[in-house]
């Protein structure tokens, strides 16, 4: 109890510091800047914080802190706009929000979904801060209990969420997750640097694919293309009046769910190394498992928004624990946060001594974060009514701009034209997975967790073999702690329960069946890739066996799954759900345009970029798309295109970024922004 009593003065002094008008002013400024960047998908806190870094040097620590935290805190709130309104995961924090948020927007309930999400975010952020105030005092020994086997089991538990998101045919979900994991292993092996499914002659893939690209590709591109083909607005009915009050009532009705998910958010966020990238999935899984009446999930159940959104703001608080106490950043934005702390030059460095010497500083961070959540949420709710009207605009007018932003965001990850090619390729895979009802959430979970599962299993394996050499008991003590055993039990229960319920949860709506050929061709292509991955990784030489084990294991299981699917396809009639194909049902009839012409527009932008560089290509793309596809008058076309270009240039200039160059740039030295 003593430590808590000691903590009280620190808490008081922290509040004294925070509640100065100038500190609050900087906080609000940070929140506004964060909002301005966070509403654009893919440009999360990392871009924002990098923007702030140059100003940090020599700034008054508490003011700099307020500015920075304002910016970080609001990102998991503001990225909800993209997730709900456009079906685009704005950042890794709102992947799961897409599943129910976007269908709600389609039903004209965008404002309701948004306000429920924001209320949950706010609540989650506050619960997180309150919990953290006490927890941070005792967190250290607990976090240290998480050694490699425990971390591995947490990752595996995250992976078990695939069970509930697998869709109607469990094996398909498992193969989708396997596919995601295999794509996650592309590039240099983490241990010996052996190449997997890549070659030095083609350097782009040696670094592997980035989450931004895979997330945007697998979720955003299929939705954009599907909406464009229908040539309507996102919402197919009139917006309901007073939606945002309804959303807050929804949250209140589910306050216990929200509280539970907040705690899940903090606790999972605390575990170092996972970066909280699975928190929203775990919260979503929990929401479904504990919900009564599950048939609306994936079609627009507000609880599917409340759960993940409660957890993702709480997670930011939890993520502070490894960042501040161990100097291990839990996410990209936390990494920059550490760098910026050093820039503040107040002699405070993150790490083991922080808690003993600077507890008031830690509390300032925790509660600034909570306060920023409040400010950010209020602003977001105020904005939501207006922004939600975007869903009533004809989509052909939005699409080129959305595509412009995600292409820019994708390019930021690697500063390479190949980023756009990768985005396009993954987007195409996403389109096909959506069409044939392969679980895209399962794929993404596999991709996200591929790296931690491989790392921890390798570390755990290497260390356990050393420990077992020292003695049987030492080894068993190491691999079977009470945490590991508990996690194994939870995981098994979660998988069993999940698989049983998965049939009722159509994470992506109902998909009709019909026709054998197309689904079969897709399965064969998947099978072909898995077989290639197996062949490619199995031939890694023996001295680098650590780089071989994981992909070979995943590929083998996926191969077995895919072969089982193939056999089933041969035996079952073509009306079976196995042959789900969106091109056959009512949705297909609503399509005004074909898949290929729509896709060709994006291919056009891509090819033109390769020739003339992004900015020139974008200008041509915007004008031709708005004029020809959207059918605007020349005046409107030019106005819209100019606005788009001006926005893009302002954004890039503010963030100090370049655009992808093309062939033209290798012959001529052009001034920015044409470089």
């Amino acid at each position, binding site marked *: 109890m003593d430590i808590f009593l000691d903590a009280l003065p620190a808490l008081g002094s922290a509040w004294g510091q925070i509640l100065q008008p100038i500190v609050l002013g900087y906080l609000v400024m940070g929140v506004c800047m964060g909002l301005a960047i966070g509403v654009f998908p893919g440009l999360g806190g*990392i871009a924002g914080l*990098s923007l702030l*870094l*140059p100003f940090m*040097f*020599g700034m008054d620590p508490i003011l700099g802190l307020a500015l920075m935290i304002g910016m970080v805190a609001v990102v998991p709130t503001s990225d909800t706009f993209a997730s709900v309104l456009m079906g685009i995961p704005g950042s890794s924090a709102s992947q799961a929000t897409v599943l129910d948020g976007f269908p709600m927007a389609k039903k004209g309930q965008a404002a309701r979904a948004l306000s429920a999400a924001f209320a949950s975010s706010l609540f989650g952020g506050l619960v997180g801060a309150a919990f953290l105030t006490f927890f941070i005092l005792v967190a250290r020994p607990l976090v*240290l*209990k*998480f*050694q*490699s086997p425990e971390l591995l089991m947490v990752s595996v538990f995250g992976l078990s969420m695939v069970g509930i998101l697998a869709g109607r045919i469990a094996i398909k979900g498992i193969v989708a997750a396997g596919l995601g994991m295999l794509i996650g292993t592309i590039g*240099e092996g*983490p*241990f*010996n*640097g052996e190449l997997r499914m890549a070659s*030095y002659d083609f*350097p782009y893939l*040696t*670094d592997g694919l980035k989450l931004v690209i895979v997330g945007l590709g697998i979720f955003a591109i299929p939705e954009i293309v599907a909406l464009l083909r229908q040539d309507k607005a996102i919402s197919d009915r009139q917006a309901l009046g007073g939606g945002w009050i309804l959303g807050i009532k929804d949250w209140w009705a589910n306050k216990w769910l929200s509280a539970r998910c907040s705690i899940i958010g903090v606790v999972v966020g605390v575990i*170092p*190394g996972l970066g909280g990238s699975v928190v929203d999935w775990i919260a979503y899984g929990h929401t479904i498992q504990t919900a009564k009446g599950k048939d609306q999930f994936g079609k627009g159940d507000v609880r599917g928004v409340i759960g993940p959104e409660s957890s993702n703001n709480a997670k930011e608080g939890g993520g502070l624990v490894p960042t501040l106490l*161990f*100097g*291990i*950043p839990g996410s*990209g934005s936390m*990494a*920059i946060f*550490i*760098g910026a702390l*050093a*820039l503040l*030059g107040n*002699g405070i*460095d*993150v*790490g*083991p*001594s922080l808690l*003993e010497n600077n507890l008031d500083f830690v509390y300032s961070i925790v509660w600034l974060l909570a306060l920023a959540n409040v400010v950010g949420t209020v602003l977001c709710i105020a904005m939501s009514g207006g922004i939600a009207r975007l869903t009533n605009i004809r989509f052909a007018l939005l699409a080129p701009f959305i595509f412009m932003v995600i292409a820019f965001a994708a390019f930021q990850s*690697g*500063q390479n034209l190949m980023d756009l090619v990768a985005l396009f390729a993954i987007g195409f895979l996403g389109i096909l997975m959506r069409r044939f009802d392969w679980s895209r959430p399962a794929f993404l979970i596999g991709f996200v967790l591929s790296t931690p599962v491989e*790392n921890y299993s*390798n*570390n755990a394996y*290497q*260390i356990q073999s*050393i420990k077992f050499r*020292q003695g049987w008991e030492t080894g068993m003590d190491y691999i079977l702690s009470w945490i590991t055993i508990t996690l194994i039990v939870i995981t098994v229960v979660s998988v069993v329960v999940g698989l049983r319920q998965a049939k009722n949860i159509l994470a992506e709506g109902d998909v009709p069946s019909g026709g054998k050929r197309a689904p079969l061709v897709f399965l064969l292509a998947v099978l072909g890739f898995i077989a290639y991955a197996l062949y490619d990784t199995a031939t890694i030489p*023996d*001295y*680098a066996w*650590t780089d071989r084990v994981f992909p070979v294991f995943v590929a083998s299981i996926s191969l077995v799954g895919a072969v089982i699917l193939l056999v089933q396809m041969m035996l079952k009639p073509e009306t079976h759900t196995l042959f789900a194909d969106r091109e056959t049902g009512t949705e297909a009839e609503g399509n005004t345009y074909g898949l290929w012409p729509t896709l060709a527009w994006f291919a056009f932008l891509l090819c033109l970029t390769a020739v003339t560089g992004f900015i020139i290509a974008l200008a041509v793309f915007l004008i031709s798309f708005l004029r020809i596809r959207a059918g605007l008058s020349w005046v409107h076309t030019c106005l819209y295109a100019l606005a788009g270009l001006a926005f893009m240039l302002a954004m890039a200039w503010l963030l*100090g970024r370049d655009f992808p160059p093309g062939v033209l740039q290798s012959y001529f030295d052009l001034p920015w922004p044409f470089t």
Partner: protein
Amino acid sequence: MSLSKFTRRAAMALAAAAFALPASADVDMSGKTIEWTIPFSETGGSAKWANFFAPLLSEALPGNPTVVVKFMPGAGSTKGANWFQEQTGGDGTVMFGSSGSTQFPYLLGDPRVRYEYKDWNPVMASGTGGVAYLNAEAGAKFDGSANNLKDMTFIYGNQGATRLDIIPALAWKMLGMNVEHVLGIKGRGDGRKMFESGEATIDYQTSSGYLKGSAALVEAGKAVPMMTWGSIDADGNIVRDPTFPDMPTFKEVCEATDGCETSGDQWEAWKAFFIAGFPSQKIAFLPAGTDPEIVETFSNAFAKIAARDDFAEISAKRLGKYPMYTGAAAKDALANAITVNDSARAFVQGWLKEDFGVELK
């Protein structure tokens, strides 16, 4: 001497000659944006280093241009360095910062290396040191030599056989210690967490990492410092690290330990790689073919930073007490960083193959 090597040397001689000319620093950089590319992520020591210097550099350059630090992580910095090799004829708006992890693959002949240090123009170099430490149990047995540690098994979280971890790994091997390497740790911060949680029993950190995190563990009695890698004096001898004057160097521990020699191939190889990796670990470059006047301007700007009244104080806090080289001294530092003799290289290549199974073609 091959033709390309010859032209390179000729170019360097020319550059040196240009350097000797009296400086007419008429370069004005006002309104320009200098992009300083760091081939690592935002968390690492190089990021700290560049973030520390960027605002100072902006102040010191004529016309106060904006200095932006950009990050281009990938393939342990090889990606960024290969990219920088392609940049030519700079007008001073492109800068690059390399580190020990850029130097080692270059020295070891990694097939992915497509960059040539000798083409680039160094404008500033600075060094760092490193500290190895033991857990409390082993620390109690440590008496300034490794004699009592030889019957223990240690576990170490290693970032990769060909990374900067060569230095601790080879040092422990030379001391006859039995260290098991858990390969594939993502950064030294993760290594320290493994040490703290008891999974690893021995660890090493660069100076800033040690001051920031591990020193607190030592205070709490959970860790015992074993040795520093030392520092190089003007005559090329290894002396105590000025940041940690109370800790013995590896050289001292080696001399006190039975069977560890501070001469011969093994020692020379360790020393060569240490000199390449630490005393001039981080170097700021302008690209090949940059106008000598611009190179001069940058060199002078960094010299001006080093001459600031408060420089010793602010840099000691953020980077540790290590020398910073500019102008001709930076060139010497670079020469040190990229030279190891063939026998040292061959020794390390052979050792990596034998102990880690790593083949470098």
